[in-house]
């Protein structure tokens, strides 16, 4: 209770400090909350950016496609490398080395190859989401106790049954954690891609507002984006807890 109260007080103090600091600085560079709030209302009532829903749909579509691809590829490659030990020992280290490269390094090449439209954002979101999912599958497979698998096989379970009934439940905890991280990173990838250069999507609106020094609109659009990101993560966390409770 007190912790929540202190947090609330902290947030309020930050908002007040922001208001105070922004009032005394260049209005082009900083927008106090009292200016952002009306701008936020105009954004939400589609007054200042009537095209907002369409741009949000573009971004949502990019995220959905990129995430679906990342999940499919991540599961397929993760299980292939985890279940076939030679493959895993050969390609696992290569994958880990590539993961040590800051992903944004690939973005200019993707933009050159796929152009400024959705495809380059989807490709980048896919790339960011793919790694944590693959690595979570690999980590999950290592956690499955070999005895469980041996016993299941000894009692006559087919490889498929062993996989579905023994392996997947045993690694569920790690797996859904990886899927959630993958979603967060896919979202970041798509938004980074849009801000680095795009003609559609929420990132292009943010860039537009910033480019025209419409700082209040820029902050309002960032707030809208943040709410959507937090909402998607909350949804993912709900699914994560469900899946983890089911596996116990």
């Amino acid at each position, binding site marked *: 209770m007190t912790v929540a109260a202190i947090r609330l007080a902290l947030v309020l103090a930050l908002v007040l400090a922001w208001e105070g600091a922004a009032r005394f600085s260049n209005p082009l560079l900083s927008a106090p909350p009292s200016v952002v709030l009306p701008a936020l209302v105009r954004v939400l009532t589609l007054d200042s950016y009537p095209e907002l829903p369409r741009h949000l749909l573009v971004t949502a579509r990019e995220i959905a496609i990129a995430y679906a691809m990342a999940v499919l590829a991540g599961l397929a490659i993760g299980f292939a490398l985890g279940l076939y030990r030679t493959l895993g020992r050969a390609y696992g280290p290569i994958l880990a080395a590539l993961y040590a490269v800051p992903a*944004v390094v690939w973005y200019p090449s993707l933009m050159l190859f796929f152009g400024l439209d959705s495809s380059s954002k989807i490709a980048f979101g896919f790339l960011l989401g793919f790694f944590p999912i693959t690595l979570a599958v690999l980590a999950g497979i290592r956690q499955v106790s070999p005895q469980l698998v041996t016993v299941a096989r000894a009692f006559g379970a087919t490889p498929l049954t062993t996989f579905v009934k023994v392996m997947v439940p045993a690694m569920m905890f790690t797996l859904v954690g990886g899927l959630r991280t993958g979603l967060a990173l896919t979202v970041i990838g798509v938004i980074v891609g849009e801000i680095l250069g795009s003609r559609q999507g929420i990132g292009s609106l943010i860039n537009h507002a910033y480019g025209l020094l419409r700082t209040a609109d820029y902050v309002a659009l960032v707030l809208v984006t943040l709410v959507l990101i937090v909402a998607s993560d909350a949804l993912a966390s709900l699914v994560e807890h469900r899946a983890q409770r089911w596996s116990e």
Partner: protein
Amino acid sequence: MRVRALQVVSIVALVAAWEAAARLGWVDAAFVPAPSAVVHALGTIGDRALGGLGDTLAKTAIAYAIAVVLGVSLGIVVGSVRVLRDVLNPFVIAAYGIPKILILPWIILLTGFGTTPAILYGTLHATFPIMLLVIGGVRDVDRTLITVARAYGASTWQLYWKVILPAVVPSMLAGMRLGIVFCLLGVLVVEMFAGVRGMGAVMGALANGFKAPELFAATALVSAASIAIVLSLDWLNDRLSHWRDQ
């Protein structure tokens, strides 16, 4: 042995297939240049790319140094004071998790184009993961160690310096390994978004100029540099945590 052979064979096969695809016109060489063209480009962009890389790495080093000092000291303070930890932990997690690119335009507005925003943004990227792991490390320090140190009359200074700091070294190193990749990423993003110098700016210019072989060469160069940095940190990590196993 078999594993090594498989690695070599598949990389060679991949490069050969790629070269063949580019030579035979299966893929447009303007977008997917042949490996031989990329190697050639590595020679032609040499000086410019190395200069850009040096610039980027210098900014990264400064940002990283600031982030390590901030992350470790704030992490120890927040981790060891119960109220601070309870109140601030969700904020630190949020600051770590949200896409910081959203505030990049504002950082550029405030600090202009050039070195300052790159260092600031790189620091911002690396501080929170380090801080988060150090907070966790301090929280998990064995209570018995602290009680015993207190019972034997250790001063607060001795408690932090001789008990808590050594105990958080593993999580600190894990945070630093995570942080360096984020730090380099932050610097590169700023250079791509609003850079006038550095590897990100060079790559952005090459992409906009449709110079695919040069772009691929630059990408390979940055990737190699960052893999080398992470591997040397891993090596350092092994050396520093050697004594723990014994």
